[in-house]
């Protein structure tokens, strides 16, 4: 086996993530669609975006461009399907857009694999919601109270 050449992928700075407002608003709406608020917080209020920002600057730094391309892809799908940014869609429109993406049913041209991106999106969102608050998400440990993991016996 030949040793694979390691691709040096640019590590996006925190500043870039913050400046990328479109991405942030889209991502916020996406994580709230993936984990909607009820009487426990939705993905955004639970700090999922904070977690995602952190994981794509550390362990998943090499995949940050891939991830951003996927968020851009969601935005493009929303515009193509409903002529509106993803964040402006109704909850049903948002869910149907993501469900289509999950099943690989895309209406725009994707530079990356939509299903691979969607799996990474769902996994990192769950990690941001359910993992230890020290990971950067799960603000206040609310999901641990919600599941009962943290309740006294």
């Amino acid at each position: 086996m030949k040793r694979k050449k390691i691709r040096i992928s640019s590590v996006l700075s925190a500043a870039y993530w913050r400046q990328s407002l479109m991405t942030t608003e889209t991502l916020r709406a996406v994580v709230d669609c993936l984990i909607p608020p009820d009487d426990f917080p939705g993905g955004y209020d639970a700090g999922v975006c904070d977690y995602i920002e952190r994981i794509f600057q550390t362990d998943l730094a090499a995949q940050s461009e891939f991830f951003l391309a996927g968020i851009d892809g969601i935005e493009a799908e929303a515009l193509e399907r409903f002529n509106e940014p993803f964040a402006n869609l109704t909850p049903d429109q948002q869910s149907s857009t993501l469900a289509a993406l999950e099943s690989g049913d895309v209406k725009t041209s994707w530079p990356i694999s939509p299903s691979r991106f969607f799996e990474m999106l769902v996994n990192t969102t769950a990690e941001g919601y359910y993992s230890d608050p020290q990971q950067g998400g799960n603000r206040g440990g609310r999901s641990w109270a919600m599941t009962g993991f943290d309740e006294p016996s």
Partner: protein
Amino acid sequence: MNEYDAIIIGTGAAGGIVACVLAEAGKHVLLLERGAALSFADVGRDDLRNQRLAVYGHNAGPDVIGNPRVFVDPQGRSRIVKPYELDYHNNAACVGGGTRVYGAQAWRFHPDDFRMASKYGVPEGSSLADWPISYESLEPFYERAEWELGAAGDGASIQSEIPRKRNYPLPPVPPSPQTVALQSAARQLGWLTSPVPLLINTESYAGRPACIECKYCVGFACPTDAKNGTQNTVIPRALATGNCDLKTSVVAENIETDNRGKVSGVSYLVDSFGQPRRETARSKTVIVSAGAIETARLLLNSRSSLHPAGLGNEHDQVGRNLQGHLYPRAYGISPARVFNGIGPGVTIATIQFNHDNPGIIGGGMLADDFIKPPIDFWYDSLPPDLPRWGIENKRFMRENYTRVMHVRGPVQDIPNPEGRVTIDNTVRDKWGIPVARLSGTTHPATVAAADFMRERGEEWLRASGCETVWSTQPGLILSGRQHQAGTCRMGNDPRASVTDEWGRVHTHDNLFVVDGSLHVTNGGFNPVLTIMALAYRSAEYIASRV
């Protein structure tokens, strides 16, 4: 002085015990460990990077950078794998080895596990064989491991299947609501149950405190040192004799032989400011206890003109029969809450199905499970037909985290020679040593047994009152992982085994293998207590001859 009575490579379940027995017998021993001595804080409580859930890394070594392996999938495609990926088949690399972070299930193998070929015949394509020793010859050493390290359990509850002379030194873990449900279901089904034996201090033992029942047991280190690995039991005893030199963060590179082919010592690499420095220690006895994959790798890499295929490999047996366990898992939603937040969480097992199942070779043990942090539960335990996102997924986590019952267990692996460790000469670790290449799968008979056990798991949960039940279907994969075994099997025929019944390599009377590599078969149980019992047995033999 760089000359020892014995050199032991590896500080895991076996190496730590061999060091203790030899050092306490007055032998001067060198104990080599490629990893570090890890404190509780070093291991940490990272719920995404541990031995149970390793999404981005792990917590007990080896380092993610510089320690690759090559994995060949069942379609024959090879790729470089990182230490925390499943296909790396990692155990830990630290003082104590896997026992630093294990779940500590302390099962003896069943007497029939030592005579699989006699009992079932040899299925085509498998290398199923009897052990050269019986359960009875290992029984005193099981007892010794249970008492010297400290095991908790109820011997009477499994006496009918696995006879023993003496009970466990510690009482079993207390029952949980899940235990009660599973126990009453088993009674209805007519199944035998027992508490799960654990190398955990349910009471203070040997000067160390009792378990505080925390929620981070398997995959993590114990906050009160109540989980008994070799790092907090036999290795400190070995060091206390003054006869044992422990060197950590050094990597054995080669087992040295003299010009007549006799083993003369070990060369190893020491990290010297980022550069490897080679040192050699001399000894008339070398014991390899590096785990089934690294032990095979070291023997295969110890090539010379007299041993062009590696040490002990005259008959192309080293590295073959790599096995572990398939783990069928069943889940059900209990009508009532079963989670009570009290760790470790594993409490009850059935060994009803380890043998004598119609149409099945072997079988396995089934037990409930350790507490899972919520993200581990999310990855592991959701029904396959549940959406992975959306309000339905969130509601499931909310309503059912405390109600999902878990049953799982290791299935006796039917070994075959094509599941194996070889050397990949094109990929090297950070020290320049060629790495292990893992290929093959288990035998289809293992998959059939695993499927049978999966159905038993579902049956148990339905009888426990769960209306919704699901399970995972094990496939035809390589099964090594943390229960890796079999790569230097013991036997009487030098053409079909690597060592004799004492772990002595057939071709070298002063070279021993003592670890899971020796297992001819790996039982339908967690293998660590058997590794420990074999280590006591071999160590006594070696001590009487060095």
